């Protein structure tokens, strides 16, 4: 029976093929049958986790807590030099200079990416804004968040910083950043479920060595990563504790 691998639905679409290449590499290295299943949205992926279908996951920090505490997952690695950060942006024509000048009733566009939404909402707090007094404009993608701002259908947009930076320069010229988070310690992680944990050290070592071999380097490039860094149990626990302080 093949193990099941999945990736948090907030991955950069440019790297979709990269995950398939990575999965092929992983199967060759481990000699295990691993099936990559990509979910379009967080709800369907969470249902698969709930049903114990997932054995390996590149998880967003929000889900990591549930995976460790409720499903017995353990961390393997994180992408070197990456952290999840969020951006609050407005239309360039908007007169608002500071989050503190926004008012209740403001229309906020965001995706269902849970950790980015959480970081964004934290950055709106200095303006006395919270889930009870904003008008949500739910968007399928960050490009649509940008479009809502450009068309005046939203006043404020919450972006994954990486996604904002990847927007075309034409779009970015018409937007303005109010706040960019600099949290540094919240990141995605590759995690391993109970059925595969007998292979944890072996897989972890393979991943850490990946950028030392030619084929591995090519696979990493297709994912947009320079290499993997080890995440030990305590580092993961620390990130989960930190996430707990932010979720209210």
């Amino acid at each position, binding site marked *: 029976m093949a193990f099941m691998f999945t990736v948090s639905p907030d991955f950069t679409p440019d790297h979709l093929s990269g995950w398939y290449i990575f999965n092929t590499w992983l199967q060759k290295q481990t000699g295990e049958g691993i099936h990559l299943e990509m979910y379009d949205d967080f709800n369907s992926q969470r249902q698969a986790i709930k049903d114990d279908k997932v054995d390996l996951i590149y998880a967003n920090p929000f889900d990591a807590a549930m995976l460790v505490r409720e499903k017995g997952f353990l961390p393997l690695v994180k992408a070197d030099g990456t952290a999840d950060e969020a951006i609050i942006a407005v239309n360039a024509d908007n007169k608002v200079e500071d989050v503190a000048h926004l008012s209740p009733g403001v229309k906020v566009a965001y995706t269902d990416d849970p950790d980015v939404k959480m970081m964004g909402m934290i950055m709106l*707090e200095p303006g*006395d804004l919270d889930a009870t007094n904003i008008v949500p404009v739910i968007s399928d993608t960050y490009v649509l968040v940008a479009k809502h701002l450009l068309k005046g259908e939203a006043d404020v947009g919450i972006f994954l910083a990486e996604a904002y930076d990847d927007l075309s320069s034409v779009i970015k010229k018409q937007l303005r950043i109010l706040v960019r*988070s600099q949290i540094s310690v919240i990141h995605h992680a590759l995690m391993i479920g109970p059925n595969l944990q007998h292979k944890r050290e072996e897989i972890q070592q393979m991943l850490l060595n990946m950028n030392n071999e030619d084929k591995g380097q090519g696979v990493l490039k297709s994912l947009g990563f320079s290499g993997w860094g080890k995440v030990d149990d305590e580092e993961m*626990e620390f990130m989960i504790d930190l996430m707990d302080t932010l979720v209210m």
Partner: protein
Amino acid sequence: MIYDMKPEDIIGEYKEVTLQLYRSIARKILYTEIETPYPDGKLIVSTTDPDGVITHVNQSFIDMSGYMEEELVGAPHSILRHPDMPPAAFKDLWDTVKKGEKWQGFVKNLRKDGGYYWVKATVIPNVRNGKVVGYTSVRRKPSRTKVEECIKLYPTLF
């Protein structure tokens, strides 16, 4: 260890007071009316052992407190205690986290240079194998409205 504040570290005109901290530590506090604004987009993070002794701080903590990392790690967290903070707030904090619950509140913190900064603080117990091994405290930028409310409320709680 925690030391009395030294006049040579203070920037600006200061007042002097002796605070009675947790575990009967007395500390001479020198404080000014100079506020350092909370930086946009950052989180101040620290962890302590179960007795409130600092075990880890991040760069934002170092930058905002004005201390060096080696002065902070090993010191009680009350190194940040500002005389304008009512002791009742910290009693509530400890009572809450010792029950295993999350505490949240607005805190005026004292800098090494005698100035201050306001934060929205959240403290949670770190549970490992069913045992509390310490606490994580995360501060974020507070709303000015809430800070103004606290400036009015806190003096009434002494």
